[in-house]
């Protein structure tokens, strides 16, 4: 249901639908601005208005009760859109101060209809024709990982204008606007406004019932603050997330390598070894995997929760299942550990490690070579410790076989 307005068009009384009126008056205002720089602008406008009034008169005579948006569109098409009239028309002495309302230029705005803080990212997204979420992620990552400080965001916030009018909005997205775009825009905004006014009215009524003025304004301050805190929490969460992922991946590689037979890390001059020393390869695998789960399950759930939080989704987890899975890994891990503690091989490896330590290998330059293999039930290990002297000759310090 819309309102009908009575207007005076060139001395004629015309009944016109409210939305149609909006597009008509926008059109006339545009023309007004365009012609206001010319001498005869007033007269030209009057002629145009009179002609439009005549067209409308015809419509009403045909039996319509009022002028609607279609009639207005038709009239505008007939009279000529501002684009048809153009700025560089008739070689006239138009001053180029009159703004080009329907230009094809894109302009960078802030989109305050779609915003977390200030609508900077969605404005950027509209200008570059990308998805808003992608821009937001990129901005957050940029801030966290490069030196571009958060202050840059606030600079953008301050400098960029809000996209308020329908023209602004269409310039934000770029491209030629037609009256239909404007009419649709106006329609959409009208219903948005109607809806939010209704909500506002409801909430005002409710708050009047309950609280005093002071409390509700305090509440809105708190809400605003909450928004800011949430935003920073999200940035922090993103950073933590990345850290957790890195840790998780590193650990996984480490433990999987362990499961498959060990690898050497070169730490300075000392090679660190991770032999798989448990009784059977299968046991090794299970052990490693349980250890992996033990660490990854908590990390994984934290990552999951952070992701949900960042994307404003409901943070819901099946805590029970996750916890049970974790307990299971813990049980397996402890079980295998206890079992292996009594494993002969493990004890020997322990001695092996103590040997190395006691030799003071870590104090000086030693080259440590070892290899081991499982033969039947036994773990055989060969250890060579060579002292590396300044002139690069090596003296063998000791050789151990176990």
């Amino acid at each position, binding site marked *: 249901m819309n309102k009908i307005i009575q207007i005076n068009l060139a001395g004629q009384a015309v009944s016109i639908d409210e939305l149609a009126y909006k597009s008509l008056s926008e059109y006339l205002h545009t023309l007004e601005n365009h012609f206001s720089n010319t001498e005869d602008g007033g007269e030209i406008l009057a002629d145009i208005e009179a002609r439009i009034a005549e067209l409308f008169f015809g419509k009403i005579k045909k039996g319509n009760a009022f002028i609607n948006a279609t009639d207005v569109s038709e009239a505008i098409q007939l009279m000529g859109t501002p684009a048809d009239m153009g700025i*560089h028309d008739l070689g006239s002495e138009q001053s180029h101060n009159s703004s080009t309302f329907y230009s094809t230029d894109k302009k960078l705005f802030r989109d305050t209809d779609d915003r977390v803080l200030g609508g900077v990212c969605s404005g950027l997204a509209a200008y570059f024709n990308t998805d808003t979420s992608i821009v937001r992620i990129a901005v957050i990552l940029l801030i966290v990982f490069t030196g571009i400080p958060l202050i840059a965001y606030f600079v953008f916030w301050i400098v960029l204008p809000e996209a308020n009018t329908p023209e602004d909005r269409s310039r934000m997205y770029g491209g030629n606007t037609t009256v239909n775009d404007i009419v649709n825009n106006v329609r959409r905004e009208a219903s948005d406004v109607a809806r939010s006014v209704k909500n506002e009215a409801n909430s005002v009524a409710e708050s009047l019932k309950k609280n005093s003025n002071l409390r509700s304004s305090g509440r809105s301050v708190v809400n605003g603050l909450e928004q800011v805190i949430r935003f920073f929490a999200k940035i922090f969460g993103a950073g933590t997330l990345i850290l957790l992922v890195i840790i998780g991946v590193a650990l996984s590689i480490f433990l999987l390598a362990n499961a498959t037979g060990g690898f050497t890390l070169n730490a300075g001059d000392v090679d660190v070894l991770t032999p798989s020393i448990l009784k059977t390869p299968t046991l090794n695998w299970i052990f490693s995997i349980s250890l992996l789960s033990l660490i990854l399950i908590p990390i994984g759930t934290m990552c999951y929760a952070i992701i949900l939080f960042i994307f404003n989704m409901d943070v819901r987890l099946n805590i029970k299942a996750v916890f049970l899975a974790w307990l299971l890994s813990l049980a397996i891990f402890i079980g295998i550990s206890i079992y292996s503690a009594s494993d002969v091989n493990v004890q020997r490896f322990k001695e092996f490690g103590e040997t190395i330590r006691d030799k003071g290998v870590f104090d000086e330059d030693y080259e440590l070579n070892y290899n081991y293999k499982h033969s039947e039930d036994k773990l055989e290990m060969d250890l060579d410790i060579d002292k590396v002297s300044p002139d690069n000759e090596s003296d063998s310090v000791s050789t151990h076989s176990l």
Partner: protein
Amino acid sequence: MKIENTQSQMRKGVLEYCILTLASSGEMYASDIITHLKDAKLIVVEGTLYPLLTRLKNAGLLSYAWKESDQGPPRKYYSITQEGQDFCKELSSTWNELTHSVNQITETK
């Protein structure tokens, strides 16, 4: 450079001449002028016409009279002045020369 802009410039260039010629055949209302132009396949929107008519009137080449109308507000009916007639004659010879030259240039390469 958009072709529509160039094309529109070309049309606008000859529009004054056409309007004056039409007006010399009697009283004309803006809408009538548009119709005549359309019949001759020269498409112009009223928004372009009014500024032009007003300018011609201010230059003394056209004059108008208000006539009541039963189809809405009063209308301006334009007719050509003596000055306008002379102007039109000159434009006519200019036009002929122009078409001649252009044809010659575009036909012989």
